[in-house]
Structure formats: C-alpha cells, structure tokens
C-alpha cells in the first residue's frame, strides 16, 4: 500500500530540485563564460607575441632579397608586418570589444591557424614550424568548445586541400 507520506512535500521537493537545477545551469554558464573571456585574453597576448616573433623571424631568416650586389627589403618582412598585423589585431580587437562572444573565439581559431601557415612560409617550410599547428590546437582546447577545434581543423584541412590541387609540391 502506498504511503501517502511518501508524497508529503513532493511539490516542494520538485520545485527545490528545479531551482537547484536552474541555479546549477546558471553557475555553469557563468563559469563557462568566464573561461571564454579568460582564454580570449590569453590569446591577446599570444597574438601579440606571434606578431613580434614573425617580424623577428623574417628579419633573421630573410631580411633582404638580392640582385647581385644590391639588396632590398625582403617581401617576407613586409608580409610579417602587415599581414601579421591583420592576423593579430583583428582577433585582439574582438577579444577587447566582445570577450567571450562565440564569434570571437572562432575568429581567434581561424587566425591562429593562419599564423601557423604564415610562420611556415617565413621559415621556408621547415618541418619544425609545422608543430605550431599542434601547439595552437592545444591552446584552443582551453576553450573547452569542440566547435572551435573543428573550425581550426577545417582551416588547416582546407588549406591543404586547396594547395593539394593547385600546388601539390608544397604539401607532399
């Protein structure tokens, strides 16, 4: 026989559980949002460091192009400065204006992968520089958002796919 007492206070129990569940979800969302904003700030510093590193790399590896005894600034230096500026400053701007926004972290993922591509070009395709891709994925994993990893992966896969068609020696 069912004990009525078993259901005594049941509506209050359900309401308390719902309240706990809602509060848990709110706390989770807050924590997740703070994580997004914190990782965005981390990438601000990383993007700046990469920009400086790219310029230093270009100045060390390929500062000049030569024609006989005449030298002129190498294209790599200009690319490191201006293209590097675009790859760094745009995500930094978004991280400053809209920290934690979903678009911000996807833009960061795209630009981080483009930085890998640029650094690989600046170092003449060195195998060691390719590890920047894997390191970048590790940093992006700090978001705990699988879609960000997917975005980064699509960028790299797309780059290899396009170059595999138009410039296969650069891939294989």
């Amino acid at each position, binding site marked *: 026989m069912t004990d009525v007492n078993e259901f005594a206070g049941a509506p209050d129990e359900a309401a308390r559980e719902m309240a706990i569940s809602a509060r848990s979800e709110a706390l989770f*969302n*807050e924590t997740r*949002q703070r994580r997004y904003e914190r990782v965005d700030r981390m990438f601000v510093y990383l993007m700046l460091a990469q920009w400086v590193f790219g310029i230093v790399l270009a100045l060390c*590896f*390929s500062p*000049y*192009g*030569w*024609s*006989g*005894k*005449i*030298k002129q600034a*190498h*294209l*790599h230096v200009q*690319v490191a400065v*201006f*293209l590097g*500026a*675009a*790859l760094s400053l*745009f995500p930094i*701007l*978004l991280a400053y*204006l*809209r920290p*934690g*926004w979903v678009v911000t972290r996807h833009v960061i993922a795209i630009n981080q992968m*483009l930085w890998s591509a*640029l650094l690989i*070009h600046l170092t*003449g*395709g*060195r195998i060691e520089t390719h590890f920047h891709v894997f390191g970048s994925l590790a940093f992006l994993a700090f978001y705990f958002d699988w879609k960000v990893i997917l975005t980064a992966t699509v960028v790299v896969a797309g780059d290899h796919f396009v170059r595999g068609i138009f*410039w296969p*020696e*650069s891939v*294989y």
Partner: protein
Amino acid sequence: MNPHGRAAEKPKYRAIIFFATIVWAATVLYGGNLLWTYKTTPSAGATAPVMWPENVPVRFDPARANLVLLAHPHCPCTRASIVELNNLSATLRGKLAIHVFFLRPAEFDEEWVKTASWDSALRIPGATVHIDEEGLMAARFGAVTSGQAVLYGHDRELLFSGGLTAVRGHVGEGAGVDRIVSLITTGKSDSSESFVFGCSLLTPNTPQQGGTL
C-alpha cells in the same frame, strides 16, 4: 545582462567590427595572394652551354655526372636549394661530382661570401665549394638566378638545367631533383629543365643595359 551572460549588445561596436572584418579579409586575401605569387613565380633560367665549358677551373670528372650549383651567398631562398642538394647527394651516393659556386662581387671580400649557405654547402658529402669571383662561373654556365643547377653527363653533354626546389625558398620534393635522380639512375627523364627560384645573380644597371654579374 541578457540570458547568455553578455552585456547588452552595443550598436556602435557593430560598425567597428564590420569595418574591421572588411579590412581583415582584404588584407588576408591580398597578402596571401602576394605571398602565393612570390613563392610560385619562377626567376629567369639559365642558357647553359650544351657542352661542359672549356675554361672552367674545376676538374671535370669523366667517371660520373657533374653537377654545378650557382648560388648567391645571401639569397634566403638558396638555403632550401642547398638542403635539396644535400638530399640529392645522399640519394645518389657518389654518382655525382658536385661543385657549388658562390658569387662574390668585386666590392665584397671573401668573408661576405661565407654565410650559413656556404657552411651548409661545405657539409654536403662529395661537394666542392668555390668562390665565384665576380660571377665568372655563373656567366660561363649561363646562370642568372641563384639556385641554378646544371648537370653534365660523363661525356660532358648537358643533361639538365634548372632549380632544385619546387617553389621559392621551400624545402620539399620537386621536379628538378626528381628529374636529376631519374637521369642518373635510368638515363632518361620527362624533361631536362625545371623552374628556378632565387635571387638574381645580376646587379641591375639600367633596364636598357640589363644586369651585370
């Protein structure tokens, strides 16, 4: 604060973000295209003599093929050519006599020539590294671009003239190396040329006069 924990959207940021996106996309597309064009546009190839030149101050080895690489010591792209030459030497294992000539214009001393590329070339097994005084060897082999390779068979006939890299300044397999290996190991190849990527060995005077070594 809205349900997603964000501050209410500020319309003024939309305009900034939109404008920044346009600038970013334009810069990435333009810069990427510039880099792509630079990397894939070959430099001028050599008009190499069909027979090994007589007045070359290096000993021609009649027992094997002889490969000559003409290089600018400060050309960043030539580093990749030196790496590929090293790989070629390892692949062909003694079947090539290799000579690397580094340009030295009269205005510079020998120390100017001895760069990292020079050091790398010295470490290639079987390679002899020379200074090309005022580009005389480059002129004799008809080379105008750093990274130009010319291959002569044991009968002194020209077998191949071209570069060793697939694109400018990048290591990795390319048509030039594949063709040289094929020529040495099978005696034939689909082509006797490949694109050359590198700095000019010529010092420009005027457009009408062309360049000088």
